[in-house]
């Protein structure tokens, strides 16, 4: 239930942001002539503050991610994330801790037409993610609905499955808005599809760092990102904007 609630808050926040960012368009119409603006090109570096916040709130989670993108052309960015996560999943029957790090690389395509020299983004992107991790089964209790004997069996021997790897792809939809000069806040949703993963013997991966939790139903996963990043301008390029004058 709690997961569901956070999920809906996530969706709501993402939708509100996209509404707000669309409110900018439509003001530049009634002029002619050509204006030239300097557009910044550079490296934008940041971190995921959602993961840091969750590390403080959720005792079963510790995570950290740095991310960056580099502007290649007017609309195209190469982008990537590097992170580490530790997540404990515990129920009445199983208790497991996943620990590992991940790297994701890909491109972002900005679909948003910026006003003047701004560099806001409403983007879709694509990533390939890899993770190396371990899973430690802390304990498990045999699931038995027949309780005549009034006994249950709990295996308290921790088992560590080391050296597991996974590779997956992601489709990203998100936005980045410039809050102050060169400082950006961003939100994104990642829809993931597992390509391959090492499964522990007589067990399975319940969580993969970077991929998030796995589902019984198949290879798909879901993730959210909340980023703060800073643009380090490297060079500037002229941007010509054809503007229309009001026709009287």
């Amino acid at each position, binding site marked *: 239930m709690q997961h*569901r609630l956070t999920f809906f808050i996530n969706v709501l926040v993402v939708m509100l942001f996209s509404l707000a960012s669309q409110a900018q368009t439509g003001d530049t119409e009634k002029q002619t002539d050509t204006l030239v603006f300097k557009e910044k090109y550079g490296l934008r570096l940041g971190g995921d503050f959602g993961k840091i916040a969750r590390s403080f709130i959720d005792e079963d989670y510790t995570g950290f991610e740095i991310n960056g993108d580099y502007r290649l052309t007017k609309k195209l960015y190469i982008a990537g994330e590097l992170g580490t996560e530790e997540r404990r999943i515990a*129920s009445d029957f199983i208790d497991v801790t996943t620990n590992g790090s991940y790297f994701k690389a890909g491109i972002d395509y900005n679909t948003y037409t910026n006003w003047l020299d701004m560099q806001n983004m409403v983007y879709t992107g694509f990533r390939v993610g890899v993770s190396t991790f371990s899973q430690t089964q802390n304990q498990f209790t045999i699931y038995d609905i*027949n309780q005549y004997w009034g006994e249950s*069996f709990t*295996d308290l021997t921790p088992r560590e499955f080391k050296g597991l790897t996974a590779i997956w792809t992601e489709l990203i939809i998100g936005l980045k808005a410039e809050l102050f000069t060169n400082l950006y806040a961003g939100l994104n949703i990642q829809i993931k599809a597992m390509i391959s993963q090492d499964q522990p013997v007589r067990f399975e991966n319940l969580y993969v760092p970077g991929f998030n939790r796995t589902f019984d139903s198949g290879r798909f996963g879901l993730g959210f990102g909340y980023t703060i990043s800073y643009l380090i301008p490297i060079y500037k390029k002229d941007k010509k904007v054809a503007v229309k004058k009001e026709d009287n």
Partner: protein
Amino acid sequence: MTLIALFTWSCERDDICAEATPTTPRLIIRFYDINNPEDFKDVRQLEIDGLDDDGNPFDMENPILVRTDTDSINLPLRFQAENEITTTRFRLTKDADFEDDIDDDGNDDLTTASNDDIITIRYTPEFVYVSRACGYKSIFNLDIDDPVTRDPDDIDIWTTSFEIINFTIENENAAQINIFH
């Protein structure tokens, strides 16, 4: 959006161990007619108790089966370690209602009697991963030499012979042991 809705839905479904999921199975025994080995035969007023290590009924108040005419029973097996030979004993009482019979003087009616047969099941538990919601289940591999034995001291038996259909108890779909009577 549909995709996202689908995710939420599967999230809920994954976290609860569905009743339909096969988890730790019980041993299934079916009763056949010794004279017509192809035919099922009800055991009249069968009552079943699990026996503790001292041979006493584990729970007098709540038997595994309470006085029923039946040709099929499910027995819960004990397990406290994986890959270790384990036994569970059951007392199968036929005509259990005769225990309470009294004659005209109010004494136990000696012309009718119930009949206890004690059976011992020998097996090795094996733990198998099911899913994130159900965790692990135990399945049972019946002992090759002595899967099921009757108490040797019992002179008045009603379970004439046993037949092992399947040495692996991994689901509750079909009987693993047949008893002829």
